[in-house]
């Protein structure tokens, strides 16, 4: 190894202002925030979280604190939610991800038997490969009048992009425009990118070919077109090839607004690859089987009608088919974020309230923040919308169940058997094999725990007394 130099006094660590950690789950559309802070307000929130009984205003105060102090993060994550609900390729991928998520529970329900722990579920190869498509690296070699695409194993090379780069580059431009409440200029965007860790690869790639201003303008347009098609990376490079062929200046000279330019690129893509029939886009088939083609708005609406089980589904539905003043707002916000966010008031257009992330979890990264105190904020629209075919059950109720399933099975399917160290009840048979690692609530006593019932209801199985295997349950909620 090379030489190493230690840093100065550890006291400095305490003085450092530490930002937050956040991400969006690409299946559930849930935003997860873990906040850190050294200010009095943060300390007060930690105190409130530990108070017994919990103070009434804790939830509102924590939610307000997150928006006030970490607005930039929430804007970025909100962009991902808007992408997920309005980009057909992402929606379809989330549907398929949801199917893969609940697959093990469905399998256990349908196949009662004894299963040794840890559980060893493996996806079919084409499904497993499909789940990795967003991170497959593709290299574009751009010639005078041609472009060659190839999948590469080593993503550390110039001209290599992944779908993740497209999604993050698009969300980064959204965040920039929302923060400054303006369209912005290429050079200013470049300066903004270096203020803190931010995704810049896609912009850099485009800027080399188009220049900074055109790259800033074209980036989100091209990404939107790409995710209105199957195989978004191929679709993206299709747009890229067209722009390279005509020259970025040509598109500027057309004096089109972004929506018109998007339509132009989309029409070109359609003329080359055609439209995909929604019947060909079944959630029963892995994404790898999809043919390249554009997904028309009507086809997207049909996909949402067939697969309404995602927490973002009611948001997608109102964006596609909502009332006047509600319809198309998510797509407009992605095109023109500056119309929806006021940097002076630090506020957003009320029309976006229907498009708040379906769920936001907020936790405080502090030793005294009690386990199980994570705030779960569900979007108001979920309370008001019934899930089709579920006898009036609102999306809010279903979303809680989806999130529980997501957290539990993500932890369970990592193939490792390790105890749930967040829970003090080490003698519980669910604890030692770690079946409940993804369960958030820690009960005062094992007998109060809701996890065994949840597990049995969703799998028709329970753990045996010594925590070494699952056994089928007949009756008692198992059947």
């Amino acid at each position, binding site marked *: 190894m090379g030489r190493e130099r230690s840093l100065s006094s550890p006291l400095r660590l305490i003085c450092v202002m530490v930002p937050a*950690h956040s991400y969006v789950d690409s299946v559930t559309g849930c935003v997860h925030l873990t906040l850190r802070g050294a200010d009095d307000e943060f300390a007060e929130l930690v105190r409130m979280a530990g108070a017994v009984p919990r103070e009434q205003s804790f939830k509102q105060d924590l939610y307000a604190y997150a928006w006030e102090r970490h607005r930039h993060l929430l804007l970025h994550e909100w962009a*991902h939610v808007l992408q997920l609900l309005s980009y057909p390729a992402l929606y379809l991928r989330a549907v398929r991800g949801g199917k893969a998520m609940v697959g093990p529970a469905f399998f256990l329900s349908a196949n009662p038997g004894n299963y040794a722990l840890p559980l060893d579920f493996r996806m079919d190869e084409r499904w497993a490969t499909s789940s990795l498509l967003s991170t497959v690296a593709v290299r574009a070699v751009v010639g005078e009048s041609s472009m060659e695409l190839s999948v590469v194993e080593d993503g550390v090379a110039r001209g290599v992009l992944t779908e993740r780069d497209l999604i993050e580059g698009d969300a980064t431009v959204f965040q920039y425009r929302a923060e400054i409440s303006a369209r912005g200029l290429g050079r200013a965007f470049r300066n903004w990118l270096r203020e803190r860790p931010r995704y810049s690869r896609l912009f850099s790639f485009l800027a080399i070919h188009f220049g900074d201003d055109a790259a800033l303008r074209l980036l989100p347009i091209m990404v939107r077109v790409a995710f209105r098609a199957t195989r978004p990376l191929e679709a993206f490079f299709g747009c890229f090839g067209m722009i390279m062929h005509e020259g970025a200046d040509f598109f500027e000279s057309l004096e089109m607004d972004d929506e018109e330019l998007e339509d132009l690129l989309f029409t070109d893509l359609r003329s080359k690859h055609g439209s995909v029939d929604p019947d060909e886009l079944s959630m029963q088939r892995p994404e790898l089987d999809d043919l390249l083609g554009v997904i028309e708005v009507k086809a997207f609406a049909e996909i949402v009608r067939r697969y309404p089980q995602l927490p973002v589904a009611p948001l997608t539905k109102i964006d596609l088919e909502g009332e006047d003043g509600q319809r198309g707002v998510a797509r407009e916000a992605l095109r023109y974020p500056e119309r929806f966010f006021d940097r002076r008031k630090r506020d957003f257009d009320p029309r976006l309230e229907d498009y708040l992330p379906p769920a936001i979890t907020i936790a405080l990264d502090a030793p005294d923040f009690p386990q199980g105190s994570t705030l779960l904020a569900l979007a108001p629209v979920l309370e008001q919308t019934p899930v089709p075919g579920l006898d009036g059950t609102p999306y809010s109720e279903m979303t809680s169940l989806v999130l529980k399933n997501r957290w539990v099975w993500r932890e369970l399917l990592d193939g490792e058997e390790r105890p749930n160290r967040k829970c003090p009840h080490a003698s519980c048979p669910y604890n030692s094999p770690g079946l409940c690692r993804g369960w958030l609530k820690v009960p005062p006593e094992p007998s109060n725990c809701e996890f065994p019932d949840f597990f049995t209801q969703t799998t028709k199985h329970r753990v045996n007394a010594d925590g070494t295997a699952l056994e089928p349950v007949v009756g008692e909620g198992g059947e």
Partner: protein
Amino acid sequence: MDLIIEGQPAELEWLRTEIERTLGSEAGLEAVPAQDGDEMKEPLLIAVIVALGGPEIVRAVTEIVARRYEHAEEMQRLDLGLRESEMHHEYKLAELELRLVAEDGSKRPIVEADLARLEADAS
């Protein structure tokens, strides 16, 4: 000719910022983020790629790489701000891994001392 720099995320973040600040678009810089999992989260750099387009760029990059030790506290701040799982509470600077990419795409490893020679060659 490209230079690929690999190292710890915080050091790469600092290098990205400094190279951009010093050279702007001239550096043709590409910051390569980690691609993992199905979560959309903040970037964690695994490499930066710089186009060594002339002696001034090589000189500037060489100086920035050499200067990084003077900015250890800035990198410590960045390190703490990066993804939780990657936090290094006992942060240490390690030598960067450098690879030179020739016009034909072939890559060969170099060390920091070679940068000065590259600068002379470019002149």
